[in-house]
């Protein structure tokens, strides 16, 4: 009997906002599912679309990219670029039928610990509904 499906989600969180929000959620002892594996990046625009694809092809069930709200980027405009890149990646995944809904872009400010917990919870549930990523067991990638 196989184990019940537990999603594995990779989260790229920007240092200035979303990672701080995750930190805040932690120190505030908020509960959220442990399915999100966090990778801290200095800015959401640091996330090369290849990171997202690589995570998905290596078997991650979902990828979350989170950064400062538009207008709040520590580097002025990084999150605007990130939004373009994520839109592009999702469009490519959509065109190839590879499940664009497994990629999510979210804006979480440093003070929004509760929102971080909420996003983690909602996205985990979304991925749970989608089921395991078919690339998980695919050898011939």
């Amino acid at each position: 009997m196989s184990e019940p499906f537990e999603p594995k989600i990779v989260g790229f969180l920007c240092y200035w906002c979303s990672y701080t929000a995750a930190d805040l959620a932690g120190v505030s002892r908020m509960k959220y599912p442990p399915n999100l594996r966090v990778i801290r990046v200095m800015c959401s625009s640091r996330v090369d679309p290849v990171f997202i694809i690589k995570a998905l092809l290596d078997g991650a069930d979902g990828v979350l990219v989170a950064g400062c709200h538009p207008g709040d980027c520590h580097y002025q405009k990084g999150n605007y670029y990130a939004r373009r890149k994520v839109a592009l990646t999702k469009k490519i995944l959509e065109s190839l039928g590879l499940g664009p809904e497994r990629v999510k872009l979210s804006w979480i400010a440093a003070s929004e610990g509760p929102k971080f917990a909420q996003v983690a919870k909602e996205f985990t549930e979304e991925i749970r509904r989608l089921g395991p990523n078919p690339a998980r067991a695919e050898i011939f990638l």
Partner: protein
Amino acid sequence: MVAVKIEGNRWEGFKGFLRDLLGEGAVGAVVVPYPVPAGDSFAHLLVKEPSRVDHAWPVAPVMTVQGGRVVSRLTRKGPVEVPTVVVLRPCELAAMRELIKLNQVKPQGLLTVSFDCPGAYPLRSYLEGNGEEIKAAFLNALKDFRLAGARPLCQVCIRFTGAWADIEVGFLGAPQGSFYLIAHTPQGEKALEALGYTGQEDLAEREKAVEELTASRVSEREAYFREEFGPQVAGPEALLATFHNCINCHNCMRVCPICFCRECFFESNALKVAPHNYLMRARRKGGLRFMPDTLLFHTGRMNHMSLSCVSCGACEDACPNAVPVSRLFAMVGDRTRAIFQYEPGRDLEEPIPFLDYREEELQEWEEPYIQSTTHCPSSL
């Protein structure tokens, strides 16, 4: 705008025009496709001697090296010192213009000439077929603009005129036994005037012909990707089957005019990892194909360059294993470019979407960022 009608054989007329440009001293050199001495293929030649132009094939039946790359190599270390004509297919011209934006081509001193392109044969079918027969069939296609056996992507090409060039050579809409020379820029006008061409021919017939063909190609292209090609490649299984023959040689990237990076990310050390990493991946999945990361290479490359992809088909010509790379990239590229209403090569002032942004855009791709109360309970 200068637009003139030239009477006479289109093929000889086109070459005559290039020879006159060089012979009259309007330009100092011409870059033009040329048959190789063995007679079974073509290469771009930087021509200085006017009589050499007589043997050129300004419209070649195959695309061996993408012209955008040729111009990039020519001007890598600086702009040309004497005015130089470059004869390019419309997709080569689009690539060149995209490379100007990417600082890979220095456009000063270049005079671009492009033409109504009937398409090109797949490189392999041309090399394996009867060259002379194919050449004859190709010259015929300049008259009726139907090229049987053209590459699939050429058959649904929607940018087949030289409208972005300094001088456009127009066959469509011209009466048989004539063609148009149309200058689109002051440099083009100057060059035409240097040859004594002035005046403004009525182009209404031509515009109508181009418009009609464009409209039918646009719907054919859309239908081809949606109904015929798309279902063959979309979805994890179909996509994997498409790439099962890929041997990861990266030829598609090497011949691509847009892939100019000196070191491609997918050939860098970033993807060469220690054995335990491969073993870990093999353990997780039960096995790991070598060479690894084939799909990562192709989908990753789509992320990096599909916005600038000019659908020239060079990648598919270069593939040793007949993977339909160019159609896949064209299909995906059509859709990614639509997000930003971007068209590669259209406007030299239009920034590449990666280098630009709007404060209010693309909201459908993000989770709404207007704070909802559920996200921020007041109890905090």
